[in-house]
């Protein structure tokens, strides 16, 4: 379970997240929606501490995963990131072969047994619904894959190290409709094993894939509820306006 409590986040003087609290249950899909610049990515990056890489940022509030404070001094950030995987908006495979891309996290984690690595790579590629398409080109450069395949490769790369949580920042926004629907199908399957948090600009996508939806605006969490309820009968007027396209 992921739990954020009274989160405030600043880029220098800029107040990017304002007093946000939210709970996400295991094995659910949570979608973040909202106009550009409202803080969805910033909020998402809190959970694998990728915001740590940005200079002059400040965070207050509590951020817990399965009860443990992930910003506690004793937390090993590299280990945290092995449990909380991330898929980025633009596919970012490494300049390596398809196989080595997926094996990367394993090798970095210290796995050396060739057979085990091969099994895990195959399992991860299968899990990302990519195995059949790439099983004959494992040695080829990852850049030779299509954009959609590259994105699923990045998902496979994240799955290979068996995270508990998968954060996805607009994973389909750079893809064509066919690739997008493949990713969406995949999300439905992954939900059984992982806790997913997905940022999207596509309202229909949020409606299709998520159990719960959070609507952000100007750094605030305006509304957070079951996806069905939010889309059928939102509580706040801002949400209503955004969903019907009167804003953003």
């Amino acid at each position: 379970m992921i739990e954020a409590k009274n989160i405030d986040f600043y880029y220098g003087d800029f107040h990017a997240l304002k007093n946000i609290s939210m709970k996400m249950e295991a094995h659910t899909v949570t979608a973040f929606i909202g106009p550009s610049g409202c803080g969805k990515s910033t909020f998402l990056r809190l959970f694998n501490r990728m915001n740590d890489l940005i200079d002059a940022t400040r965070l207050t509030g509590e951020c817990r995963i399965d009860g443990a404070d992930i910003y506690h001094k004793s937390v090993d950030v590299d280990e945290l990131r092995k449990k909380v995987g991330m898929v980025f908006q633009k596919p970012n495979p490494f300049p390596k072969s398809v196989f080595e891309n997926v094996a990367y996290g394993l090798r970095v984690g210290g796995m050396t047994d060739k057979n085990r690595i091969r099994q895990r790579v195959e399992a991860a590629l299968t899990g990302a619904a990519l195995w059949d398409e790439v099983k004959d080109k494992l040695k080829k450069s990852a850049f030779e894959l299509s954009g959609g395949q590259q994105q699923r490769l990045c998902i496979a790369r994240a799955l290979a190290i068996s995270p508990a949580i998968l954060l996805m920042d607009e994973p389909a926004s750079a893809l064509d409709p066919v690739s997008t629907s493949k990713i969406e199908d995949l999300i439905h399957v992954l939900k059984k094993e992982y806790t997913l948090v997905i940022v999207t600009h596509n309202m229909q996508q949020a409606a299709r894939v998520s159990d719960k939806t959070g609507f952000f605006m100007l750094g605030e969490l305006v509304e957070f509820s079951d996806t069905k309820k939010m889309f059928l009968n939102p509580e706040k007027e801002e949400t209503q306006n955004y969903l019907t396209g009167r804003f953003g």
Partner: protein
Amino acid sequence: MNKRTSQRIAFGIFRILGISVVGILVGILGFIVYHGVGAVSWEFLTTAPSDGMTAGGIFPAIVGTLCLVAGSLTIAVPLGVMSAIYTTEYAGNGRVIRLIRIMTNNLSGIPSIIFGLFGMALFVNRLGFGDSILAGSCTLGLLVLPVVIRTTEEALKAIPDAFRTGSLALGATRLQTVGRILLPAAFPNIITGLILSVGRVAGETAPILFTVAAYFLPRLPESVFDQVMALPYHLYVIVTSGTDLEAARPVAYGTALVLIVLVLFMNLLASFFRKILDAKKG
């Protein structure tokens, strides 16, 4: 005059200037080849000088220059690459980093004879290396350090941040990211920096003058504490001093030709290497 005519004239001038650069280069090469090719023979490449350096070959000087190139790169490459990794991948943009940058830039502006003097004071005398390959390599290593640092920095900066975040998001440490993703990706570009360094090291006279170069030493070095002859210094010696300057002139051109070919050959080797890496990458 309308815009198009003036543009045409401007580009015409640029073109002539561009071509004349090529002309100058071809001129220099042609001049050296024309005068030097007669002196170069198998014997010239494989024997030591004789008859007051008016005859014989330049083998010890070739070996000496190769030793100095290898020695100085052995020193400059690890140092330069490591400090570039530090400045681009670890340190933020604090005062220390800016100081390092300024120092690196200034280091490359120091005349090479000053390096020679400093190398003599520090390596030859203070550290007691004596006139030796070690002292010369250290001095030349310092000289090319800024080039190595600068190219490595540029090579690292050219790598998209998405590779870094992608790697870190998988739980890799910064050091693992550097070693497994960034350095391999930057390698071909770092090689380019080495090409420049090789040319510089092989051709410099001033830094080796007081630190390693021997006037006349027909035997080959046995350890890093030996002196050696070197091509550029040998060239200087046979042009300016010796028993019979006129008689030694062909040897001088021959030496110049060998020096140029050596540098060109190393550049070719390096860019060939780079092509292979580029093809393998990705």
